[in-house]
């Protein structure tokens, strides 16, 4: 990590058990944004190949199967009903957790099963695809938050999952740069 990445303080190895607090965040000007970009770039510096994400279709985790389907639908430009994603996004924003199983109202079936880190990466990838497709800022907002969790835990991810995260972070950086250009 470069020195000024220390200014970006939204990385916490205690996530997802602990929640990162984003309320009333202090203004740090250009220096803050530059520390954000440097931190993200440091993470993807390690990227060796531009792999396409490899999904585990044999997973036994219900949320992973659901995420696989969403990724497939979004990548192939199939019809995608955002109502379910929006409900999941709401749950994530409240809890800052992604659970292994949800009921039909997207409430967690078992509130203790939130430590599957691959789910956070898949969720991040879904958010990058949905922001790319629809451009709603809520998706980019949650993408930044879930990637804070993912980067906090990057050393615990396997190589295939890391690769999906690299793709998602690349998207995220592009989106933030595009938004800056658009609003300048």
């Amino acid at each position, binding site marked *: 990590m470069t020195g000024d990445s220390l200014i970006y303080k*939204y990385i916490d190895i205690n996530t997802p058990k602990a929640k990162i607090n*984003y*309320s*009333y*965040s202090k*203004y*740090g*000007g*250009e220096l*803050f*944004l530059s520390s*954000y970009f440097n931190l993200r770039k440091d993470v993807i510096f390690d990227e060796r190949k531009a792999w396409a994400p490899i999904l585990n279709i044999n997973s036994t985790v219900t949320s992973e199967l659901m995420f696989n389907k969403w990724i497939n639908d979004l990548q192939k430009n199939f019809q995608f009903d955002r109502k379910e994603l*929006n409900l999941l996004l*709401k749950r994530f*924003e409240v809890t800052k957790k992604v659970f292994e199983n949800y009921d039909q109202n997207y409430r967690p079936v078992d509130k203790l099963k939130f430590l599957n880190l691959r789910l956070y990466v898949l969720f991040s990838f879904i958010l990058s695809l949905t922001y790319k497709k629809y451009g*709603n*800022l*809520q998706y*980019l*907002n*949650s993408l*930044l*938050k879930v990637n804070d969790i993912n980067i906090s835990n990057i050393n615990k991810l396997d190589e295939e999952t890391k690769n999906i995260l690299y793709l998602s972070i690349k998207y995220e950086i592009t989106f*933030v740069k595009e*938004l*800056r250009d658009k*609003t*300048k």
Partner: protein
Amino acid sequence: MKSKILLLAGNTLRARAYGQQLQNLNPDLFEIEGLLYGFPEKDCIIPNLNSETKIFVEQQGLFIPKFDESIEITFSKNNWSFSKVDTIDVNSRAILKEIEEKDCDIVVFAGYGGQLLKDGHFVSNKRYLHMHPGKLPSERGSTTIFYSILNQRKITVTAFYMTEKIDAGQNIIYKEYAIPSKGVDVDRWYDNIVRADCFVSALKFLNTNDATMKQMADDSEEYYIIHPVLKHVALLSL
């Protein structure tokens, strides 16, 4: 007939802004009372008014509150009565009981950040007025002022009657404000100033009209606390 207003106030900048704006109402038309809570537990940190904020707000013709004036002083100066409840829990039985016993038509909520009013508040015939920085029903949720800047829309504040559902209820009025210029303190000054301005306009409106604006079913979007990166992109765009 006088409208009876109860300000349900924490030791917050917003409560001070609302309290001071109430001085701009005709005392023959309004009767003001206060219910202050959580004061021993919470300090109110007074932010510096930087020159960019002062100049911009003055250009807009908006009222600049004196944040170093406590809500107790504002109430005492105006001979408005107030009582205090020694709890920070806005949904506590003590606060609900106090509100129930007050003879008021409208309760104005100016509590602590992140607090939500629960069902117990909405069982009586008292109406709860809230000012939301966003155009309801389309811009629901949190930190919407920054999303408005990013979406290059005007800043809108909606005055509405609250229900137990977040940012849903009957709209009273909404007012539009200019996007702030560079260096304006949005969180602590501009947000409170525009809400307080809309607040007093809503009370004046209600004094002569009924809340007639209906919430419409639409494709509303719910915003969540803005990530610091997006907040910086918004503020750096000014």
